[in-house]
Each structure stands twice: as C-alpha cells, then as structure tokens.
C-alpha cells in the first residue's frame, strides 16, 4: 500500500494510507508504527497511530522531513501487515443499574431486550483503533451491527470515569468524568490508566479486547481493590 507523505510544520510527518477508514489501512498504520519502533530514525520524538495515518514527530534541530521520510520508506519496504496480532486484553463490565442509564434506550432503538443488547456487546470482536480526546480514551472498533446506535443529539454532562459507552461501530471505556454523547451501557472497574509507571495504559493500539460481565457485588469488590491497590 503506497502511502502519502505530508509535512506538518517543522517537526512532523504525516503518513497516510487511505482517505477512508478501512482495515487494511489501519493494519498498515500499526505495522509501520511497530517497524519504526524497531529501527527509529535519528531525532525521532514519537509516533502517533490513528485510523488511517501515522504521525512521526521529530526534533527539527537534528533531522528534517526528507531524512525522516527516507527512513520511513525503508521501513515500508519490508512491512508485514499480516503477522501482527495484538495482545488480548480483558475488561470487566457491570451492566446493572445505576451504571447503565442508556441500556433501555439502546434496547428500544434496536428492538432487542436489554439482555440481548448485553449479549451482543459481549460478542463483539474489539480492537484498539487509536487513543484520542483525553488521556487513556481508547477507541475500540467491533460493536456488532445489531446494537450500533447513533450518537445522542446533545452530549450528557459529568459522565463518570469507567463508563462503557458505544456509538456506531465503536466502544470506549472512559477514564475521566467528562461529557459524552455516546450511549452509556455499563461501568467497568478495570483501570485503563493503570497507575503502573512501567505500563501506565492498559492497551496498545492494535490490541484486542474482550469484555466480561460482572454483577454489582463483584463490581463493588473490584472497585475497592483498585482504590486500595
């Protein structure tokens, strides 16, 4: 896949694989990200994977767009998009009141029972597409079509951290109290911001995620453990 290179100011290069979101482009982003991590260009500051492109930011005192582009092209030569399998991560979700204020609305919109909505959510094959919006906000693809619902017309304020929210084919577990227009179907005690300095975020882009259903008592117990741990 032949990407497009664009210079961003004096300090970054944007490598774009497609104009529209598609799996092959995202696989290429992840593969290039990994290839650059293995042999980083001189002066590299960081790479930022997104849906169809990868940002490569660098120190303009040490290098420039052309030198970085040449190194990225070297990495693209031997890109193996097929062999990359993300790590499987597990996230627990309590779908009970008061943590799932929009479950009934999603059920009504999709013509399913609330339990069928929960089952459908658990059956999703989730992948971490990218982070964005706020620290630890990992956008997951893989909500099955049966329960894909549009965003609300207006965002709801003060949605608590740990909320499991869906919109269209995407799902995310919030990490901060924030407004959201996505549908809130559960709450997770699994910390995405782990607090572990050696691995501060639960997911890497490209990881696979499975959700496991827990009851309210388990949620309360796990939340306490996290708070004390």
């Amino acid at each position, binding site marked *: 896949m032949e990407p497009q290179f*664009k*210079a*961003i*100011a*004096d*300090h*970054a290069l*944007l490598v*774009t694989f*497609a*104009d*529209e*979101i598609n799996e092959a482009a995202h696989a290429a982003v992840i593969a290039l990200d990994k290839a650059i991590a293995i042999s980083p260009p001189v002066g590299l*500051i*960081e*790479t*930022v*994977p*997104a*849906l*169809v*492109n*990868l*940002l490569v*930011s660098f120190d*303009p*005192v040490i290098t*420039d*767009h052309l030198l970085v582009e040449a190194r990225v092209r070297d990495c693209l030569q031997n890109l193996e998009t097929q062999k990359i399998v993300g790590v499987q991560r597990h996230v627990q979700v309590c779908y009970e009141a008061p943590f799932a204020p929009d479950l009934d609305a999603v059920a009504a919109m999709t013509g399913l029972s609330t339990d069928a909505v929960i089952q459908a959510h658990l059956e999703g094959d989730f992948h971490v597409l*990218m*982070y*964005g*919006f*706020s*620290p*630890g*906000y*990992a*956008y997951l693809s893989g909500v099955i079509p049966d329960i894909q619902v549009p965003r609300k017309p207006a965002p709801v304020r003060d949605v608590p951290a740990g909320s499991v929210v869906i919109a269209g084919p995407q799902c995310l577990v919030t990490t*901060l109290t924030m407004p959201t227009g996505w549908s809130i179907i559960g709450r997770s005690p699994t910390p995405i911001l782990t607090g572990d*300095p050696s691995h*501060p*975020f639960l997911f890497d*882009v490209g990881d696979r995620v499975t959700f496991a259903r827990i009851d309210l008592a388990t949620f309360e117990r796990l939340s306490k453990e996290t708070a004390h741990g």
Partner: protein
Amino acid sequence: MADAEFSVSFAGPLVTFQDAGRPGNMRYGVSASGPMDRLAFDAAHAALGNAAGQTAVEISLGGLILHCKEGAVTLAITGGDFVVEYAGQKTSSWTVLTIRKGERLAIRAGKAGSWAYLAFAGALQSKTWLGSHSTHSTSGFGGGALQAGQSLIVCDAAVGDDRLGDIPKPDFTPKGPIRVVIGPQDQCFAKNGVERFLSDEFKVTDAYDRMGMRLSGPELALDGALSIPSEPIVRGSVQVSGDGVPTVLLADHQTTGGYPKIATVISCDTDSLVQFRAGQTLRFTPISSQQAVHEARRYLTQKVQYLALISVARGSLEQRLMRENLIHGCVYDE
C-alpha cells in the same frame, strides 16, 4: 539549605504547575503539556541559574497572590508584560527579586501578554504524572491547578542577591504574521478558503485556554466533507470546525480529531502566538516545510545564546560597588 513556604492567597483559573512537559505519550491520548510560552519559561529558570525544565508556576490573566510564610528565596518572573507587586512597589514581569517571611507577592495581568512564569531558586514541590509535573489542564493530572489556601513548598531555597534586577527581554522573537506550513488538509477547503486564511485578519476570541485559541474572522468554507477520519493533532494545528471557524490547538490539545486542518503554526512562532489576548488581531503567512526547519534551527541557536547570556549572575549590588570602588581606588593611587 532551608525550605521556603508560601501560602496561596489567590489564584485565578488556569494558574498551574508546569515543567518541560511529557512528550512521548500522544499515542495514549496524552498531549505533552508544559508551558504555553516555552521561551519565557526557560528564561525564568536561566535568570536564576537553574537547570532547564524544572517546575515553575504558569500564571494566567487571572493572576496569583502569594504570602511567604517561612524562609526566603530568590525568584524570577517572566512572560508578557504582567504587573508585579512586591514590597510596596509595582514593577513588571522580566524581573528577579528575593522574597522573605512575611512578605507578599502579587502578579496580575498587565499591559500585554496572556501567560507569565514564576520560577524559584530551589525545587518547587508538586505532584507528578507519567514522570512530569506539568498540569494537563483538562484532566487535572500532573502538578495541578493552584488553589487559594494551598501551600507551596520550595525545597533547598536559595537567596541569590547577585541575580536581582531586570531580565533583558528576548529581542529575537519573530514579529509580524504568524508563520504556518499549509496543510495537511488544505484540499478539504473551498478554493478561496486557503486564500482568505492567508490574506485576512483574524481576531483572538475569549475561547482561549491551554487547549487552544479560537479565532474569529472570515468563514473558511469547507469543500464537501465536514470531517475526515480522526487523525493526529500537534501543538500548532489549525483545525477548522464545520462552521468554518479556525482554532489553533496548543499545549493541552486533544491528540486526535476529525476536523480538517488548514495549516500548522511552526514551533518557533507558538511562543509569540500564545501571548496574544482576546480582541487582538493577527495574520498568518505561509512558509515551506524546509524553511520552517531552517527557522526552527535559527530560533534555537538564538535562544541558546540568549539563555546563556541571562544565566550569568550580575553580582550583588555590594559586590558591584566594591568592584567600582577598587577601580576608583586604582585610579586615585596613580
């Protein structure tokens, strides 16, 4: 050395702890944060002989009032043209002074500038997150925002009377229009969109914080698609929302977003840009990415020379008088 302790009598909104920032976490949704005006921040530390990148206080237009409860410490105030009230006197930012137990220091918005920096000759204590004291303002992670009633502790507080006085302001900062590299989504705009962006004047609105600066001006009409697949954002990205309004994204920007970006402000022009205030007008001018790299290098060279110059202690008044006396003495001896 002893510690110095302050109580915060008043802190406006967006008065925060900042160090050099936490680059390298954008892939996890975390922008680098750090000072809005990196030059003024670096100057405050240099003027005290501090190591670069230590924690300082970034002061917004809301201002800050401190009381010294314990000890004594020399401090530097830089950035914009803020009013500094100390020991019954009114001065302005770009100054070094020593504050002692019982004294009060007030820093308020002055004639110009949006951000000032307060650095101490010592180690200012604050919380860290991901290895940095910088406050990420939307999450509150890192050192955090200062609140009235809170204490500030400066460990190993030093009094350096050989550093007191005015700090020469940098004279190499770019004047004139803000320089941008066009793109990466200039193709998303109607034919005259980019032209108007580069030829018309824009006004800074009061929708200005550490995340970004919204501008008002001509509508930058989009050609067709209102959004693109969400993609990475950098400090300086000029994104245009569906209503044709541009916003320059700054220190605490979102890391990805789906609005098309018409241009990116080059890194060495963001220090000047952030000191604009609501109501002020500005223009943009395009340069090539190669030219932008050249300008970034030139700016850094000048900055290094400037910081080296202001980091040299000038000698205390007493020492200076002594030197002059000795010189006079030599003259008379002949």
